[in-house]
């Protein structure tokens, strides 16, 4: 891999390396996260996309120490925030980094807030705990934060309970709570999935504006490539517990380096009427995480699968500046591999013959 070798003393804001998480269940251990590495830069948005169950939530919840262990188990990996370890601990220098350095919001705002505590109090809590502010000071700051989150009549609203809020308002209040201590990173795990389409834009706009104003980095988890296109700088595409492609948002949309990414794009609803086409969901289902395949996890569904794909795991082939794809088609012996990937949705399910049938990279299916 060609590394960006510019000499900087400054470690990346957040760096995760080779994260592996398993869950011990009666049926065996589920390998939910299988060697995930990524980094997040100051003020940038990293989107993590992938099908349901591919390990997006487990990845970020492990970083936040929110995965119950047991049944969860950290198998390997490191995670550092500005060079300081955050894995397996919630403390940096005896201070909880959660809520102060990294804030997090969740998918369902309706159930993610305490039903018997006022919104204002819940927003004030991190300020009391991390900054030692008084009840009163924290509460009046909570009102300001609600105003910042564009909640009308914030002063009255702060005294209300979650059930008196609508879903969109709750998610905005959640954002206000997560950024109360001005964290460097905001993790948003599918923040708009549970909301009406019309409300989704408001919440995304709010996140975007807060990022502009405060330089907060965002890790945004979503299934929705529309959200990715709107918000992300960098994108990590996850499949079966691994990042199979990673690149800039343009890389992902215009220079996809993995057949799965192309499949996701084909399955993406388009709201551009001129480009209206039927959705082509990816056939088949993700592999069993109890015993993941030895080769490429996507092989069973991939239209281009070759012999080698089922026997050995593809490495991350670097295909551009900060852009890699975990796919054998990038191997130098495969002629026109990338073109094949880019041929995209229309030929997605038909596949194409390989040039050199005798090589280990020859096509598997007849």
């Amino acid at each position, binding site marked *: 891999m060609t590394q960006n070798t510019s000499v900087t003393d400054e470690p990346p804001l957040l760096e995760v390396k080779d994260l592996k998480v398993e869950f011990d269940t009666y049926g065996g251990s589920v390998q939910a996260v299988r060697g995930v590495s990524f980094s997040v830069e100051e003020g940038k948005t990293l989107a993590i996309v992938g099908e349901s169950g591919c390990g997006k939530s487990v990845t970020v919840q492990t970083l*936040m*120490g*929110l995965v*119950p262990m047991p049944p969860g188990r950290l198998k390997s990996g490191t995670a550092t925030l500005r060079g300081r370890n955050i894995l397996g601990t*919630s403390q940096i220098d005896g201070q*909880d*980094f*959660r*809520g*102060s350095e990294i*804030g*997090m919001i*969740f998918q*369902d705002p309706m*159930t*993610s*807030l*305490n*039903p*018997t*505590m006022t919104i204002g109090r819940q927003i004030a*809590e*991190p300020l009391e*705990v*991390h900054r030692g502010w008084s009840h009163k000071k924290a509460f009046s700051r909570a009102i300001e934060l609600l105003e910042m989150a564009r909640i009308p009549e914030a002063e009255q609203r702060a005294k209300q*309970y979650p*059930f*008196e809020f609508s879903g969109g308002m709750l998610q905005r209040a*959640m954002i206000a*709570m*997560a950024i109360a201590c001005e964290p460097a990173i905001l993790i948003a795990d599918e923040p708009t999935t549970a909301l009406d389409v019309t409300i989704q834009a408001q919440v995304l706009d709010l996140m975007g504006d807060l990022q502009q104003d405060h330089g907060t980095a965002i890790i945004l988890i979503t299934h929705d490539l529309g959200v990715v296109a709107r918000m992300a700088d960098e994108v990590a595409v996850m499949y079966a517990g691994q990042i199979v492609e990673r690149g800039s948002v343009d890389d992902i949309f215009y220079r996809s380096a993995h057949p799965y990414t192309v499949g996701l794009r084909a399955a993406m609803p388009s709201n551009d009427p001129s480009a209206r086409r039927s959705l082509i969901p990816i056939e088949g289902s993700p592999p069993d995480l109890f015993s993941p395949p030895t080769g490429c996890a996507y092989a069973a569904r991939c239209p281009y699968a070759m012999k080698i794909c089922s026997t050995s795991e593809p490495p991350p082939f670097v295909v551009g500046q900060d852009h890699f794809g975990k796919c054998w088609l990038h191997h130098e012996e495969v002629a026109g591999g990338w073109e094949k990937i880019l041929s995209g949705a229309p030929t997605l399910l038909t596949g194409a013959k390989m040039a050199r049938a005798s090589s280990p990279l020859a096509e598997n299916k007849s």
Partner: protein
Amino acid sequence: MLLYALKRLIQGLITVWFIATATFLAMHAVPGDPLSGAKAMTPEIRKNLEAKYGLDKPVSQQYLIYMGNLAHGDLGISFTQKNREVNDIIREHFPVSATLGIMAVVFAGLGGTLFGALTALYRNKWPDTVIMIAVILGISVPSFVFAAFAQLAMVKINGAIGFSLLPVAGWGSVSHIIMPSLVLGLGTMAYLTRLMRSSMLEIISSDYIRTANAKGLPPTRIFMKHEMRNAVMPVVTVLGPAIAAITTGSFVVELVFAIPGLGRYFVQAVQQLDYTVIMGTTVFFGAFLVLMVILVDLLYGFIDPRVRVS
């Protein structure tokens, strides 16, 4: 809220009226009457007595008289205790029952929430196992068995240490209250423990506790401000029925521990078919329970904002 309270109060009054009517009808459906138990009695004496107590009148008229008196708060005169007013009996003996009952409810409520929270926090570890075995015992063994065991144990302990740590029976001092109220509250405590445990377990794995953790709140704060408050909610809802269970349980416990409470009088009155005492105490207990349930409902509204605001 005030309107709600008023509505509940009126509903309560209607309930009490139903209880009174049902008791009255049940009383008159039972074979025999208060006078049939007495020794030799000439027909004339019997007639006189019937006239005195109004038993010679048709049942419908007796009912009207009874209801009229009840409306004035007059529960009548005992048949078996010469000229003793039922109101007097209640006034004298209810405070004893109430003290016993309140202490039992306090024990049950505090113990239940505490042990329930403990079992949830130590889920599947030894404190959980030990307490849950005790809970099964507490729920399945009737209170008079506990009462007997407690007395026996106390006799042994007092004998072993050479002085009276706690009195075995009777009434009068603070130390008299402890053992019977524990015994009385035990079953309810066990029930509340189980309830609190499942409630707590549900809340520990809820989304908003995950949020609280993601905010970096210290565990003690999460426990006190987020978990306990929400977990205790279902316990409060069953406090009404719990008080009822304890009240009915008190009849037995008062007998075993020789406590001069109202429950003992009630049992006695049933044995002697003392109409007025039975009806009076039943209506009184009924009204008391209805009031408790209303109070608990209002309390619930106070701690659950979803009820309070709407």
